[in-house]
């Protein structure tokens, strides 16, 4: 694979910045600065006007155009010179997808004829996508351990749930400021990862998986028990107040972009890690640990790095979840939040970058679309929302037997095959 040049990187960054900034500029320029407002306030109110308008505004067209343009550039690829070449391939698709997600709140607002920043259909969809982003981060983190390093963990929910619990407990009981609570929760994730690493990584393979399962289950049981009811609210969980700008009920558009940014950050962190020399060693550890040790690598340290990073990412996802719901209950520590990222990773494709994200989007959106759908098969009507767990179970089995590389893995294999065929036939 040819390495992209530095100038291509600059173009890439420039386009992304433009995609993010253009709406702001547009909002500011089209609004009428009111008399008496300072420059910044005028800018802000104008942007708010442009954002919150109902229906199909010029802003929407701008977004649609931007996304379509990026997609076209990606498709046209190398034929279009430097710009096209920089966008060709996976990078262009990532960028187009990101632009689409940036545009999404306004597109849903336009389609459903509601405002992107007040109660309505668009608001509802933003909440669903915030969930998707959080799950995607969790799946990315799971994939780092499971796909890239080959360490099976059945206790990922411990990171996620403790993130959600600790951010709330620190803010509610110790009255820490929000940033302190967030940093504190991430620090707790690191501590948990260190414990898991130092204690658990001595144990191999399946034993480690079951060790992590037990580890997570301890927290699940403690969180749900009446013993700590004053602190955790036992099985009902607890709620806490969050600062206004993080309040998802009111400032949902902000939270949407916060979640999106966090997901992109997690994606880039894992991508950069796996493309670095450290990442190569991690893959080597997965494929043949003994050989990696023979070559002089301390594989324990490398696995520790991976588990800490995965822990922080999953903990961060938990923090977001806690802040989004303004509360936490024992279910975030339960087996579901280990199984969900596992199946998302498998559906999307393990050991691929886009796989877990695609899996999270696909499965969660499917669940939401089908929530109230009733299908009648052979005289038996089935409410899909109620039977979602059953469908997930069947997907599990089908994926494992029929589709072992997931969506992204299968597509990549097809590409590789086609390229090999093209290379072998003389042109």
């Amino acid at each position, binding site marked *: 694979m040819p390495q992209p040049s530095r100038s291509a990187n600059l173009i890439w960054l420039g386009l992304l910045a433009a995609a993010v900034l253009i709406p702001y500029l547009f909002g500011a320029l089209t609004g009428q600065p009111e008399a008496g407002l300072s420059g910044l306030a005028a800018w802000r109110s104008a942007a708010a006007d442009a954002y919150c308008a109902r229906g199909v505004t010029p802003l929407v067209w701008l977004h649609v155009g931007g996304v379509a343009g990026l997609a076209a550039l990606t498709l046209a690829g190398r034929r279009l010179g430097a710009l096209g070449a920089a966008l060709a391939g996976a990078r262009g698709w990532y960028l187009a997808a990101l632009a689409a997600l940036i545009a999404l709140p306004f597109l849903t607002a336009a389609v459903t004829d509601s405002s992107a920043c007040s109660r309505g259909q668009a608001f509802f969809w933003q909440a669903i996508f915030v969930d998707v982003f959080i799950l995607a981060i969790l799946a990315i983190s799971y994939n780092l351990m499971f796909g890239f390093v080959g360490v*099976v963990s059945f206790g990922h929910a411990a990171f996620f749930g403790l993130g959600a619990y600790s951010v709330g407990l620190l803010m509610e009981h110790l009255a820490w400021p929000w940033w302190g609570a967030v940093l504190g929760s991430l620090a707790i994730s690191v501590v948990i990862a260190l414990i898991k690493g130092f204690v658990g990584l*001595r144990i191999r393979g399946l034993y480690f998986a*079951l060790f992590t399962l037990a580890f997570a289950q301890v927290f699940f049981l403690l969180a749900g028990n009446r013993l700590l009811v004053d602190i955790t609210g036992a099985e009902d969980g607890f709620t806490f107040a969050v600062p206004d700008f993080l309040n998802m009920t009111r400032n949902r558009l902000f939270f949407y972009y916060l979640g999106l940014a966090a997901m992109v950050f997690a994606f880039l962190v894992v991508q950069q890690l796996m493309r670095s020399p450290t990442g190569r060693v991690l893959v080597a550890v997965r494929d043949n640990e003994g050989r990696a040790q023979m070559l002089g690598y301390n594989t324990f340290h490398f696995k520790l790095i991976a588990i800490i990073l995965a822990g922080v990412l999953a903990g961060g996802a938990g923090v977001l979840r806690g802040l989004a719901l303004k509360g936490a209950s024992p279910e975030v520590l339960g087996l579901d939040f280990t199984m969900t990222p596992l199946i998302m990773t498998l559906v999307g494709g393990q050991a691929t970058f886009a796989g877990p994200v695609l899996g999270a989007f696909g499965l969660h959106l499917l669940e939401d679309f089908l929530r109230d759908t009733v299908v009648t098969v052979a005289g038996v009507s089935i409410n899909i929302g109620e039977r979602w767990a059953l469908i997930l179970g069947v997907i599990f089995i089908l994926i494992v037997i029929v589709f072992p590389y997931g969506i992204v893995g299968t597509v990549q294999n097809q590409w590789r095959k086609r390229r090999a065929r093209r290379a072998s036939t003389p042109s």
Partner: protein
Amino acid sequence: MRQTLRVNVFRQSLILSGLFVLGLLALNLAVFRPGTVAVVMLSGLYQGMLFFLIAAGMSIVFGLLDVLNLAQGAFFMLGAYAGFAIYGALPAGTPIEVRFLAALVGATLTGGLAGALMEIGLLRPLYARPVYQIVMTLGLSTAINEVVRAIYGPAGLVPIEEPPALATTFNILGGQFETYRLFIIFVGAALMVGISLLLQRTRLGIIIRAGVQDSEMVQALGINVRRIFTLVFALGTAVAALGGMTAAPFLGAYPGMGTDFLLVAIIVIVIGGMSSYEGTAIASLLVGLTRATAEQVSLQYFNTPILASVSILLFMVAVLLVRPTGLFGRE
């Protein structure tokens, strides 16, 4: 040299387990009245036997096939539901003893049949891909749970009546213990000995034990290992289903009942050392006794049974730290 070393480790673990049980007993005697101690010990045994019924199959299957069957809990639940169905389907005049026995036999057969189908249909294609097997059994477990929930509803069924002869309690050192739970202890002990005899004294047992050591070699000797795999798998699920049915008179049947037991069964086989049958048998009793003691202690001091679940998890972590492959496991 190696052999003696392993025998030594085995003996060491055996002594450790014995000391642990004595320690538990001493703790009990120090804290509770004799009647309570007796009840705690018996209830530890009966819990241990239930755990054994699920864990035995998992452990043998893991040793032979290298598959951790996470659907075992679902078979436990399936046994309970199958038992209920048979119990209810028999004509009204049938005596309870007959119904109960029919339910036990029927549940065991159902479990065995379902297990055989699962092994042939779903597991066979996956022997080359270990991680996927776990994921598949997990998915299957969810699917079975949900199908049962869809058919019988989420609420669960009211426990069935046990035979009148077993529906009494008896007095032991001033404590009251249910006869039916004693019956479970007997069923468990009988199976424990029975399976052990099967493994040690029959031709099938020799093949299974050889397969645990090296299944390719067994195949090379002209034995149809595939058929043995299916048989062993079905045996494991049948025992789990029997366990579910024996638990039904006081647990009833509800979706997810298997998952609770599955987690404990996993702990049991990890403590015992994954593929060791003796280890599983001993570990299930240790776990049962630990759980019962912790339950009683925490009920007395904290007024909640929280320690029951936490104690066995900590027990497992402690064992893994001392012996990373479990008490009786191989390196």
